[in-house]
């Protein structure tokens, strides 16, 4: 299927969640008999109306009961279904965690978990609805592949891949409607491989989710002041691309990880875990929530508090870069 720039614009407007559940999942359901999509009373908000109407036998709403949802998903998977289960990332990755550990991680049930509204898109709803630790929780569980797409097109590619691939997965969808476009045209998605979006000489900015777009903005600002940055999209958080990282460490003088997540346990930690095993690697700067929550407000407000806008990422990088060069 060829993807047009018009498709990309439409999907951007729908956001990652709307594109996945409104467009991609119905497309998968058309050809996949053993598909099941489970939600915990978040069908309408997630844009599943078309799916529900067209494929009622492949849909199950379990009500507001996330733990039960994952247990049911596991039972269906044991009998051979390919199961996707979804609700807000903050609920699915936290309330259901023990079910995920027992049934997906330990027993290996073929369930794909889609956590939506990850990060702080639900900023005004308050911390209860933010997911800024989900990567840490899920990443610590053996056997679960973890994805974090940068835009709507990538989210759809990841879900498509998941539907064709055995094994438990966590797919972290960020943002709401109007998700910024990172990929302006179609590209080949290679799971498990870091994707270089900008080639630079001094600094490697490794970002994930919505922070890929913010990092691309930061890169432009930094280029204007003569700092040359690579921008790398870490769409696969686990397993992390060790070879790709090794290459990045060799070619840059400073590493910056940027994520809409706590700096403990997320993508930055995954990068650091690889870096720590290697000799003579550059310094790493962790940009993300600095092990704290901020006051609630709009997404922009929270991002500014946490230093997660393109401008603030550029400023932090400039400061850290000058520390290295002043030595």
């Amino acid at each position: 299927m060829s993807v047009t720039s018009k498709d990309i614009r439409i999907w951007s407007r729908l956001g990652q969640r709307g594109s996945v559940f409104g467009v991609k999942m119905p497309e998968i359901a058309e050809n996949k008999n053993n598909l099941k999509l489970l939600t915990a009373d978040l069908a309408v908000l997630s844009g599943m109306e078309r799916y529900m109407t067209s494929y009622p036998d492949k849909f199950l709403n379990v009500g507001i009961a996330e733990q039960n949802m994952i247990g049911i998903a596991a039972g269906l998977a044991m009998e051979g279904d390919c199961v996707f289960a979804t609700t807000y990332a903050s609920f699915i990755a936290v309330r259901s965690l023990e079910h995920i550990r027992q049934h997906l991680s330990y027993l290996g049930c073929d369930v794909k978990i889609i956590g939506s509204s990850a990060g702080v898109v639900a900023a005004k709803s308050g911390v209860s609805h933010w997911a800024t630790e989900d990567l840490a929780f899920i990443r610590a569980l053996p056997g679960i592949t973890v994805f974090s797409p940068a835009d709507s097109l990538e989210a759809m590619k990841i879900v498509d891949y998941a539907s064709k691939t055995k094994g438990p997965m966590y797919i972290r969808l960020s943002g709401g409607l109007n998700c910024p476009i990172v990929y302006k045209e179609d590209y080949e998605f290679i799971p498990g491989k870091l994707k270089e979006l900008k080639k630079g000489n001094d600094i490697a900015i490794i970002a994930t989710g919505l922070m890929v777009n913010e990092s691309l903005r930061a890169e432009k600002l930094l280029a204007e002041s003569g700092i040359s940055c690579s921008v790398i999209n870490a769409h696969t958080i686990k397993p992390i691309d060790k070879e790709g990282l090794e290459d990045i460490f060799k070619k840059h003088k400073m590493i910056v990880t940027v994520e809409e997540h706590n700096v403990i346990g997320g993508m930055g930690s995954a990068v650091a875990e690889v870096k720590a095993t290697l000799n003579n690697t550059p310094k790493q700067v962790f940009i993300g929530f600095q092990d704290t929550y901020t006051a609630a407000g709009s997404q922009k407000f929270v991002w500014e508090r946490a230093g997660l806008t393109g401008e603030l990422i550029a400023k932090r990088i400039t400061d850290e870069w000058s520390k290295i060069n002043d030595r």
Partner: protein
Amino acid sequence: MSINCSEENIKRLNEMAERMRLSALDMALASEKNGSHLGGSLSCIEIMAALYGEVLNINPRNPLNADRDRFIPSKNHCVLAHIPALAEAGFIPYEEILEFQKDGGRLTGYPERKEIGLEYSGGSLGMAISVGIGIGLSFKERKRDNKVYILMGDGELNEGSVWEGFMSAAHFKLDNITVIIDRNHLSYDGDTEDVMGIEDLGEKMRSFNWFVSKCDGHNISQLLKAFSESEPLKPHIIIADTIKGKGVSFIENKREWHHHTLTKEQYDTARNEILGKEG
């Protein structure tokens, strides 16, 4: 499903239960200083005997047969009842049951081993009901007649997600699910009604739109009758009234025997009691 309630069959199952009780003691002794969950295993021996000796449609010669019923243990600490049942049903050789704590063994830690009849590995209480519902939904959708049997303890009904499961099984009209509650009235810390009361359980379940049966959980005849009951479009719960530690006087209704070590002397006394011999 036709259940044989003849006197002859009941006698056979009672004999099976007695052998399982003795095996449970063997396992408890073999666990040495680690101790074992003897109390809650002895309370569900007859339930296990009824299931593995009569009710479940399973075949050790074809353990992965798609038409088989699924037994999902939720009170997973009852290995001392379940493993002897698997041996009785022919899934494992009797000699193997004492290896249940061997490092890396195929029975150790109560793993999932479908090829020897272990359909599910749990351990953290309250989680298995949801898995059973998923399996029941799958059978319904594929228009298959397989049944799902889930054995739960009474203490684990304190877990909130259990009630999410109960609510959803009735909502989805899963009349292919039977939950058996081993109602032995004791959890680790004492009487269930002191720790966290669950009564009136029958009324609660009826109000959740389940079909409720009650029986003496040590009476094979009553158990078989309960298993043979059903109501269309409703999940079935059998509240089996039991005695924790049943069959051994110094273990019966003793909180501390939830998890305990068994000395050789105690083993001999218990064995004689079960066999009806004077000590």
